């Protein structure tokens, strides 16, 4: 079992039983052999703007004036107050970066890539990214996690990071000693019941841990609130299977061999944008996560995507757009999605020699009113199925 946190404390070298991390920062070179992406013929350098054909003429474009108003400020406050670190030693030395990305080397025919980018609203205000992600692996089992700090909670960035460190490891510890046959039940009711129980207990333990840190540091648990996306992937003799659940918003989708997409869990949503009724570490979270857990056979699955709301909202509904998103990540960007103002022109980020920084660049797409932190985690089969090897029209 490994921590595998994308921003593990400096000076520590967490073990990685399966899938050594190729990179912990988007600025470092990848050691992962990747299928190189060809350049896009005729693609402009830099951004691709919707409807832009030539240099602007005439009076100043209000849209350009608006873009110029956005600031990119460093974070003014320390990422984590000393009184919190004192009660959460795993955060000691944590090297926060506005953008973070990580590639795990191929895991038995699968590759895991994750990237997270600070949103423009945080950059404009000079505050930190509040999204976090993590992946842990042991043997045939992989657990993926994304957490998004609630905007109204003052230490939600810390809450999301702690949840991504604690929860996957706790869950992995509870299932890693299961005999292979337990997983080979496939998508059976018995396996689903067992998984719901261990997910509930793991979320309970994580909530209790976070609440204890809050209390000991003279804060309240609500100060650390975050949403949760959690997925497990097991390769077994009885077939591969995926389990997924969530607390709050964001989405988990799977792409199928036939080129279709399915949403695995139901996000918490209301009449208006951003309305969530349950967060981690609220008392409702363990039961919520257990109830929403779904289990699917994975034989015809080509890709699993975990997207924080900063990615889910611009592409909503993701169940309809996930295939186009993956195709763009694999094949490259030569025109922006419909309704987007601009996207960075680039060859397929997943085939880039440095996929970490390429995906962070991809996350810089501009869509009016969509300025939240953006995090995407992909678990996908390699080599990629032909059905995803060409771009369809970028419609949403």
């Amino acid at each position, binding site marked *: 079992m490994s921590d595998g946190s994308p921003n593990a404390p400096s000076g520590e070298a967490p073990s990685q039983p399966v899938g050594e991390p190729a990179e912990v920062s988007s600025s470092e070179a990848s050691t992962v052999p990747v299928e190189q992406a060809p350049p896009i013929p005729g693609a402009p350098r830099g951004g691709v703007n919707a409807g832009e054909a030539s240099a602007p003429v005439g009076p100043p474009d*209000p849209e350009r004036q*608006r*873009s110029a*108003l*956005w600031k990119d400020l460093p974070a003014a406050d320390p990422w984590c107050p000393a009184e919190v670190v004192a009660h959460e030693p795993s955060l000691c030395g944590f090297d926060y970066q506005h953008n973070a990305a990580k590639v795990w080397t191929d895991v038995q025919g699968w590759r895991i890539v994750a990237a997270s980018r600070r*949103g*423009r*609203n*945080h950059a*404009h*205000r000079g505050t930190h990214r*509040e999204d976090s992600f993590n992946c842990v692996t042991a043997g045939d089992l992989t657990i993926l996690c994304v957490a*998004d*700090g*609630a*905007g*109204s909670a003052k230490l939600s960035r810390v809450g999301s990071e702690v949840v991504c460190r604690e929860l996957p490891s706790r869950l992995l510890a509870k299932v890693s000693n299961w005999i292979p046959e337990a997983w080979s039940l496939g998508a059976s009711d018995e396996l689903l019941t067992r998984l719901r129980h261990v997910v509930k207990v793991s979320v309970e333990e994580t909530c209790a841990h976070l609440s204890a840190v809050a209390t000991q540091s003279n804060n309240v648990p609500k100060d650390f*609130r975050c*949403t949760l996306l959690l997925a497990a992937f097991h390769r077994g003799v009885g077939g591969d299977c995926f389990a997924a659940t969530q607390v*709050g*918003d964001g989405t988990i989708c799977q792409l199928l061999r036939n080129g279709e997409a399915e949403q695995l869990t139901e996000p*918490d*949503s*209301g*009449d*208006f*944008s*951003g*309305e*969530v*009724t349950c*967060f981690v570490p609220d008392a409702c979270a363990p039961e919520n996560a257990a109830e929403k857990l779904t289990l699917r056979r994975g034989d015809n699955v080509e890709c699993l995507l975990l997207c*924080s*709301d*900063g990615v889910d*909202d*611009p*592409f*909503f*509904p993701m169940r*309809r*757009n996930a295939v186009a998103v993956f195709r763009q990540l694999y094949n490259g960007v030569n025109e922006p*999605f*419909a*309704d987007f103002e601009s996207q960075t022109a680039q060859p397929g980020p997943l085939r880039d020699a440095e996929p970490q920084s390429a995906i962070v660049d991809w996350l810089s797409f501009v*869509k*009016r*009113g*969509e*300025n*939240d*932190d953006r995090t995407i985690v992909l678990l996908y089969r390699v080599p990629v199925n032909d059905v995803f090897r060409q771009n369809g029209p970028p419609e*949403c």
Partner: protein
Amino acid sequence: MSVRRLPVYILADCSSSMAGDPIESVKQGIRSLRAELLGNPSAIETAHLSVITFDSGARQVTPLTELAGFTPPELAASGTTSFGGALKLLLNCMDREVKKGTPDQKGDWKPLVFILTDGQPTDQWQGVADDLKKRRPANIVAVACGNGADTTILKQVSETVLVMKQMSPNAFSQFFKWVSDSIAQESKKTGAADAGQPFKLPPPPPQITIAP
């Protein structure tokens, strides 16, 4: 996919008691509000403004319009105080103009409503106030201007009732600056928020107090 908006409705009492400096101050306040918000990129991208006036009747003088295209309306004071009519019109406008979330579409952000009034309602208002409280379709701030407004009535439509004792141009100016700050704060909201919690506003300026 479509742009998610932050709908903002301003309900302005234009009854005869608002004549003179007060109505001129409201007009200037709305102009300043627009100018202030145009310096804020997140407000430009999401905030949409509408103005509803009420005197002997209620009218939506400006439909929900994006900030860049919003023209501050001309206002004149006369007649009585159709408070109930204004609330009913507000509900109708929101039903028509605000997008709710569906499995295929993200909803708009929860609307912000600012109600300014200086007098007692002269029409039936209780039924529609009950409807507002039941449906909770927006985050509503009501401001009692001067000594004539009844905060007890305003508390029936809003959990956030402010009192502006002096109806001076400076007080209105401060109020609209605060409205601008409130809209800017809401427009910067990203991601999940607790659906059950009351929304947080910036602290009101010195000349405006929170009704006890």
